[in-house]
């Protein structure tokens, strides 16, 4: 997702509020919850972001939804402000950047782990530990399966890619043979 300058500005503003009252992680959770609801419910997203409807109507719909959720008051006010400024459709981008900011504040590194099959719990724990010692940060892993790897494992942390897949090894071998390194 491409995060716009506007999204970054709003995310930074919310984070500064969260840091002041020490609830930035709760705000992050609330924002994540609303962003996923907004993305999954296209009709709701259309209703609150389309300027064809009057602002009062859109606000009534938004506050009806927010009334059902147990979000922090600051988050509710923040979402109302976004609606007033016609920036409600930027919520997913704001959350994405907010997550990055909170990760930095909490010293968290997010890792994407790709394997051809399910990864065992014991291996997950060991890998997490190794990655934490590698990055000197708390690591939160998200696993994904990709049969094309054939075997082995691929780990992505930010810009760092650690490729231990069979596919990559075969490609490396092929390139070496192409260059004539094994004559």
């Amino acid at each position, binding site marked *: 997702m491409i995060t716009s300058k506007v999204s970054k500005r709003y995310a930074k503003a919310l984070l500064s509020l969260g840091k002041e009252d020490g609830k930035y992680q709760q705000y992050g959770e609330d924002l994540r919850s609303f962003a996923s609801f907004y993305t999954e419910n296209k009709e709701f997203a259309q209703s609150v972001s389309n300027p064809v409807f009057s602002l009062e109507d859109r606000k009534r719909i938004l506050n009806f939804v927010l009334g059902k959720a147990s979000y922090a008051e600051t988050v509710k006010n923040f979402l109302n402000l976004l609606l007033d400024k016609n920036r409600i459709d930027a919520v997913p981008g704001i959350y994405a950047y907010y997550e990055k900011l909170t990760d930095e504040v909490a010293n968290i590194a997010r890792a994407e782990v790709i*394997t*051809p*099959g399910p*990864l*065992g719990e014991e*291996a997950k724990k*060991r*890998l997490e530990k*190794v*990655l934490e*010692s*590698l990055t000197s940060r708390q690591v939160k892993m998200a696993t994904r399966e990709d049969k094309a790897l*054939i*075997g*082995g*494992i691929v*780990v992505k942390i930010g810009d760092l890619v*650690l490729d*231990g897949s*069979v*596919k990559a090894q*075969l*490609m490396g*071998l*092929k390139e070496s*043979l*192409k260059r004539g390194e094994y004559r």
Partner: protein
Amino acid sequence: MVRRPYRPGKFLVLVVMAVAGCVLFCGLAAAADPAHGQDRSADLRDLLYRFINFTLLVIILFVVLKKVGIRQFFVSRTEEIKKKLEELRSGKEEAERKYRELEQRLQEFESKKQEIIEQFKAEGLAEKEKIVNEAQSRVKQILEQAEATVQQEIQAARDRLRGDVLTLATRQAEEIIAREMTEKDQDRLVNDFIERVGKGH
């Protein structure tokens, strides 16, 4: 040879006298002809008148011609003709001189012509040699380029073939490994990876 000057008056008097004598003689002879026995005095008179008439004509003609200066005219005409002849002679000499000059120039040209032909032949030979040399060097260059292109094409074909073989071999290897890969192998690969990352740190 000494030429006597031309005198037309004397010549004319002599002619007139000779003609008059002839006419008188012929007239008298005809009048004295006894064979016919006729009176010819009227004819003689007529002849005399004619003679007088003719003599008068001659005298008048002589006087008129003398008055208008016919002699002077012929003298000047003669001079003019002489002058013209002189001019023609000098023109002829000039033409002959020019002819001789042209003949000499022609001879010189003939001798130069040979020299020019020789020079052109030499230049032509030099040019021919130059063209042949250039053509030979160009041929050599083209052959070298062709050789290089052939070598490049061979190398490219070799690389393509190697690439194709390697792609096929890699695909085969992937299929075999995917078929033969077990959970145990996968666990071993993951453990090796974790171990390597840990050691690397």
